[in-house]
């Protein structure tokens, strides 16, 4: 181009819009538009540290001790952050309630944090607003309400935090007439009431797993996904025959649960028949005059007149007799547990049985309930409050982190009553049914962005600290309440400072610490908790005959015509709070293997009686209230029992959870049925239509194949001394491993199928969510599957869960067939996947006998901000068209090796834990070096219970399964 031409050209360019310029503007505007969507960049300049904070290294993860009070059982956790982003949650290993393990819910907490559906800014009547306006207007409204003598309704979850309770108290004192109600869809109210009736004071109880020998669980899913981590661990420790005597678990339950799956004797008993079972046991107990219970004449006369027959219980006489003999055989070390969903008198009876067994301090320990447990209001309190609300007596309703519109029974009419309140404020992480009715919608901070403490675990005060500054313009609700105090009482706007000063004045003085407060505070933050004085144990030795006779009367009156419907916490959604969590929605139910929804779990016989098949809709009614739910036909369910998991059919829950599954809530009544969760006299009518219920497993029996093996305790003793127990320790390895040889041992005796391992793996390895439709098509991406097999007769089968991950075969069929050598054997025995070499022929997956390889059929990753922040930078994010699978967390192996090298020492057993192993509450998974004869995995691999799944194929897997164990009563066949 000549100079003249060039000048002309640039003149022409400046004059009009030519192609280049158009494209330039187009790309600039696109860039501007896309950067405008990015809320993170709006938060100011991003500059690197000028002075590097101590201990913070780019790319190296930092662990912070914290807790998650918004999650079931308020777990104590370590939050691993990288460059300021929480990436992985692990249990706090020093915390007694955790021992390092977690449940699936808390493993999924990071997804809640980075949920793109989270509320980002304060909204007023649907319009974006700001905190200044929100604080000002809400405080003004509160002032006006106070002035016009209207009341203020404050609804929160049950508060495990003493600091939060103090904030509420301050708020109540400041504004005068504040009604504070805590809202939990699932709580232990019935249990507390039942125990208060017989003991005079409310209490709860914990099993002492190291001492108990016989446990009878009545509709008590303590090994379920919502069970306590400590119970999983304690139970599992007593199921390994090589470690001493096995505990014997009896389970009486209506529908199969994870606990029933582990039972040695599972008795299908309808929930409404549970009180009769306990009555029968009680009556049998007091026949023996030496029984402590029998010494009380009133109780003896009350119980001896009972005459409950085995027919009334619905169980064969020999089974009942065996149960009685088993419990009474070692009374101090036997105990009975009743599930929270059962009515109060069941708990009274269970407490009486335990008292009769005299097991307090041995098999069981009673515990003073936490303030959170005690704060749950009675149903009539709700009824009265909603009535006042309807009559316009409340000037403001503040729903802080609670979702009453969804959680309360429909017959209470809360949603309509809410319209009579001039001001409704809803603070929430995500859109909810309650935010949909609120004028002010306030974005709440996630637990990982919040300060707090909790006293949910007796004798401990656990701290919660933020691990990143809020992603959105969110605040934790306690801080909102502080900001809405009358002007003259406003203190610090920072809840962290409030918490610290409260600890300084309330906690520090009684903690008896030797160091000064700052050191004490830093140590508490570091450890995540401090020990406090345990409250004195409740007095439970006495049984009040009046209370017991009332309970017996109720239990005698209970009969159950027609069907009965039991509502239990959603194994994945809990009470609906996790509905928008795709990781949890896609985690198969441990029993039904259903994902992305629920159903009415019934027995085959019941389905036949209703003349409906699985997936077909049935209308269940009680007292004019009805719900329509598709059937989910499952083995092991007692006839005429309908079990529905709660937490589904959210109307407003975000883009993931809205409209998933079915809700039994409309069937419930505020005053409850037999209990708030148990309804009898339910009639069923076939409804039109059907729904697609997605189960990841299409086959449920073992076909007589040997991939899962069970062993009985008695048989185990006989085998002691035998050379080999199980088959399939095949020919010597075709590879020679000079250094390490990684292996895994998976103990089926411990695994309850809870799914914590799967979610831990998902979080660790950047595994995408694929959605219900793709799961239905068989394209779920989980690297660790929980195979669930039914063994035995379908009316009451045994259940074995088998975690199935890549077996890292020495003679791997997958490695042989890849044309481009994208999956190759490492010198340490791993089948490594080279993602960027994979062309996606999928031959490896076909040739995998375990079918543990996963293919990116579509681009499954969520592209919305800030979902990308969740990725673990140590693990490649696989693109579409690429095969992937478990690598034994090769990034953790590399990190462990590096750490040992830096510290100038050899790798020790236990230095490296896979994510699944780390999360497992039952300690069922052990990783290590098979070449190290001292390693745990080496010893377990040589265990008599050890076997290789499909070892007969000669693929030489590196995973040893330890057979499931049962400890049935000798001679008793059920």
């Amino acid at each position: 181009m000549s100079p003249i031409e060039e000048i002309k050209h640039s003149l022409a360019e400046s004059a009009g819009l030519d192609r280049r310029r158009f494209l330039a503007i187009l790309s600039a505007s696109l860039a501007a538009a896309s950067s405008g969507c990015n809320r993170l960049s709006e938060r100011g300049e991003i500059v690197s540290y000028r002075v590097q904070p101590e201990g913070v290294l780019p790319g190296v993860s930092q662990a912070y001790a914290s807790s998650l009070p918004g999650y079931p059982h308020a777990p104590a956790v370590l939050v691993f952050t990288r460059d300021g982003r929480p990436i992985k949650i692990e249990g706090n290993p020093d915390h007694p309630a955790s021992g390092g393990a977690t449940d699936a819910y808390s493993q999924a907490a990071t997804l809640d944090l980075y949920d793109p559906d989270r509320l980002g800014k304060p909204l007023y009547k649907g319009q974006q607003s700001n905190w200044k306006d929100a604080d000002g207007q809400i405080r003004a409204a509160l002032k006006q309400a106070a002035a016009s003598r209207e009341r203020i309704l404050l609804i929160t979850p049950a508060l495990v935090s003493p600091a939060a309770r103090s904030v509420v108290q301050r708020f109540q004192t400041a504004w005068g007439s504040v009604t504070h109600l805590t809202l939990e869809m699932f709580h232990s109210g019935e249990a507390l009431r039942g125990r208060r009736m017989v003991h005079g004071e409310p209490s709860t109880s914990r099993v002492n797993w190291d001492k108990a020998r016989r446990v009878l669980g009545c509709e008590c899913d303590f090994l379920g996904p919502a069970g306590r981590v400590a119970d999983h661990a304690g139970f599992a420790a007593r199921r390994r025959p090589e470690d001493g005597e096995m505990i014997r678990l009896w389970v009486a339950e209506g529908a199969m649960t994870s606990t029933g799956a582990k039972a040695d004797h599972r008795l299908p008993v309808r929930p409404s028949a549970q009180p009769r079972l306990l009555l029968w046991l009680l009556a049998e107990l007091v026949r023996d005059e030496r029984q402590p219970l029998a010494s009380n004449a009133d109780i003896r006369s009350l119980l001896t007149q009972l005459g409950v027959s085995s027919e009334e219980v619905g169980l064969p006489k020999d089974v009942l007799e065996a149960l009685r003999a088993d419990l009474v055989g070692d009374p101090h070390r036997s105990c009975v547990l009743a599930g929270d969903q059962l009515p109060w008198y069941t708990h009274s009876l269970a407490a009486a049985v335990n008292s009769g067994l005299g097991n307090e301090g041995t098999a069981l320990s009673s515990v003073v309930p936490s303030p959170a447990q005690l704060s749950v209001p009675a149903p009539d309190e709700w009824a009265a409050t909603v009535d006042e609300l309807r009559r316009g007596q409340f000037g403001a309703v503040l729903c802080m982190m609670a979702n009453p519109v969804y959680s309360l029974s429909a017959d209470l009419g809360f949603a309509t009553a809410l319209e009579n309140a001039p001001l409704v404020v809803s603070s929430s992480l995500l859109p909810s049914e309650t935010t949909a009715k609120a004028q002010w919608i306030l974005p709440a901070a996630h637990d990982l962005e919040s300060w707090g403490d909790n006293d949910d675990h007796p004798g401990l005060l656990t701290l919660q600290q933020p691990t990143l500054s809020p992603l959105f313009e969110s605040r934790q609700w306690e801080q909102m309440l502080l900001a809405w105090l009358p002007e003259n009482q406003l203190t610090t706007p920072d809840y962290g400072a409030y918490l610290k000063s409260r600890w300084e004045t309330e906690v520090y003085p009684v903690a008896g610490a030797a160091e000064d407060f700052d050191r004490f505070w830093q140590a508490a933050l570091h450890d995540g908790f401090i020990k406090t004085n345990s409250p004195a144990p409740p007095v439970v030795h006495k049984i009040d005959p009046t209370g017991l006779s009332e309970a017996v009367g109720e239990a005698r009156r209970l009969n159950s015509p027609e069907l009965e419907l039991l509502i239990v916490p959603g194994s994945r959604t809990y009470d609906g709070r996790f509905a928008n969590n795709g990781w949890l929605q896609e985690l198969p139910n441990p029993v039904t293997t259903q994902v992305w929804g629920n159903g009415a779990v019934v027995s085959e016989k019941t389905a036949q009686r209703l003349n409906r098949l699985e997936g077909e809709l049935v209308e269940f009614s009680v007292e004019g209230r009805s719900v329509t739910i598709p059937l989910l036909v499952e083995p092991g369910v007692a006839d005429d029992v309908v079990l529905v998991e709660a937490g589904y059919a959210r109307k407003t829950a975000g883009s993931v959870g809205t409209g998933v599954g079915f809700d039994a809530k409309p069937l419930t009544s505020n005053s409850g049925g037999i209990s708030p969760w148990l309804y009898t006299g339910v009639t069923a009518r076939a409804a039109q239509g059907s729904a697609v219920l997605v189960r990841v497993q299409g086959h449920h029996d073992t076909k007589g194949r040997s991939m899962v093996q069970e062993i009985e305790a008695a048989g185990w003793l006989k085998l002691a001394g035998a050379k080999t127990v199980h088959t399939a320790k095949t020919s010597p390895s075709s590879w020679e491993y000079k250094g390490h040889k990684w292996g895994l041992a998976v103990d089926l005796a411990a695994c309850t199928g809870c799914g914590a391992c799967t979610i831990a793996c998902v979080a660790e390895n950047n595994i995408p969510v694929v959605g219900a439709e793709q799961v239905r098509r068989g394209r779920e991406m989980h690297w660790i599957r929980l195979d669930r097999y039914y063994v035995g007769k379908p009316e009451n089968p045994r259940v074995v869960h088998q975690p199935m991950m890549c077996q890292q075969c020495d003679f791997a069929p997958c490695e042989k067939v890849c044309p481009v050598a994208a999956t190759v054997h490492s010198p340490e025995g791993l089948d490594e996947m080279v993602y960027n070499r994979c062309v996606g022929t999928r031959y490896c997956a076909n040739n995998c006998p375990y079918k543990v390889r996963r293919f990116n059929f579509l681009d499954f990753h969520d592209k919305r901000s800030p979902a990308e922040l969740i990725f673990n930078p140590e693990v490649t994010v696989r693109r579409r068209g690429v095969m992937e699978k478990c690598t034994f967390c090769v990034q953790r192996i590399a990190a462990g090796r590096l750490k040992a090298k830096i510290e100038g020492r050899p790798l020790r057993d236990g230095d490296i834990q896979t994510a699944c192993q780390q999360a497992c509450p039952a300690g069922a998974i052990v990783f290590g070096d098979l070449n190290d004869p001292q390693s745990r995995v080496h010893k377990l691999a040589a265990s008599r219970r050890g076997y290789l799944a499909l070892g007969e194929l000669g693929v030489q897997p590196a995973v040893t399964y330890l057979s499931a164990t049962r400890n049935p009563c000798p001679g008793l066949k059920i």
Partner: protein
Amino acid sequence: MKQVPSAPGHDVAFDQELLAQIDDDIAAPMRVPPGKLWWAAIAFTSSLMLLGFALMGYTAYRGIGVWGNNSPVFWAFPIVNFVFWIGIGHAGTLISAILFLFRQPWRNAIARFAEAMTIFAVMTAGLFPLIHMGRPWLAHWVFPVPNDMSLWVNFRSPLVWDVFAISTYFTVSLLFWYVGLIPDLAAMRERAVTKVHRVVYSLLSWGWTGLNRHWRHYERAYLILAGVSTPLVVSVHTIVSFDFATSVIPGWHTTILPPYFVAGAVFSGFAMVMTVLIILRRLFRIEHLITIRHLEYMNKVILATGLMVGYAYLVEMFTAWYSAEEPERFMLLNRLTGPYAWAFAVMFTCNVIVPQVHWFKKARTSLPIMFVVSILVNVGMWFERFVIIVTSLHRDFLPASWGLYAPTLVDFGILAGSFGMFFTLVLIFVRALPVISMTEVKATIPGSQMTRRRHSPSELPDVEDGIHV
């Protein structure tokens, strides 16, 4: 136009017809503009082809997830189609090479067409491994291309063997077919009606003048290529069967698969040749060149290979039972009674029961019967691959990992597209090149040596042993 020779007992040596007339008859479709029927046919097939290509593009854009493939059925329709089309090709090589070596003069009339079909079938088949990849843009990685990373293919993988087998097969078949075409292309050049024809046929015939030396080289080259092609008939489908036979999956892990696949390939290939020839000889009025006698011979081959395939089915069942391996036995049971039992029933009926009608001469020489049989055989053979691939995969070792497979509309569209592509190529072929080998057909006619001499321009010098005399 000569009369069609009466079918039964008619000799392969045809009527004494003017040899020029044979050339004319064969060349006719190239010299007259195609009729409405051809246009309609190609409009239909090329639409299907374009639909198939569009869906392949959609797959590359969205991902394999637009198909029905899943875990555990990671391979489904596209691999079924791949094996099916590779199998179709085998008849061509068998007819043109093996029967040539065995001096079966009756094959001369159908060899060209069969060989062309081979090439089109392999082209169609070759598309499937490509589009089947999760990342097809990296397809070149399956070739051992030297590179600076010293990254080699995995020679242990049967898929790599496939790459070699199929690329060899395509190359040799194309050469063999093209070498055989050269004298005919020269004849076409002589008969060219337009300038385009003359230029194209001139270029393609490489200056063939029918010299003795040309013929000598030609015959030698043709013989050698026939010799090279012959082992490919056995090897290609053997190697394709290794994809399955060397795996661990029950139903795949079977030593009988190689012979079973070869027999099945010849079986389906002959049936496909039959289906198309029956239409073609009628449309192009070449019934006197491709006689009932030819078709009857082919029916005998179909009957024989059908029996072999049936035998293989029974041996597989016996072995499954005899192995006493639970997964193997279950595989057998699942094929017979599982959710895809209907596919097995279609396969068994079409491949084993239906061809039995060819024991009867009446059926073997009846056009409608053999037409229906040939189509059913190909339906059956497609389902055979479906049974082997999908039914084996969907329930293997761990019942918890079992699943079901359902194809999507995209799967069906691509299947239809493959037929569209194949028949589009066939339709172009029949209008562009002689579908019957003029030279070979004439060579089988008594006295052909003389005529051939008469055919060659007499002014050219005689050549003997490559030396001008």
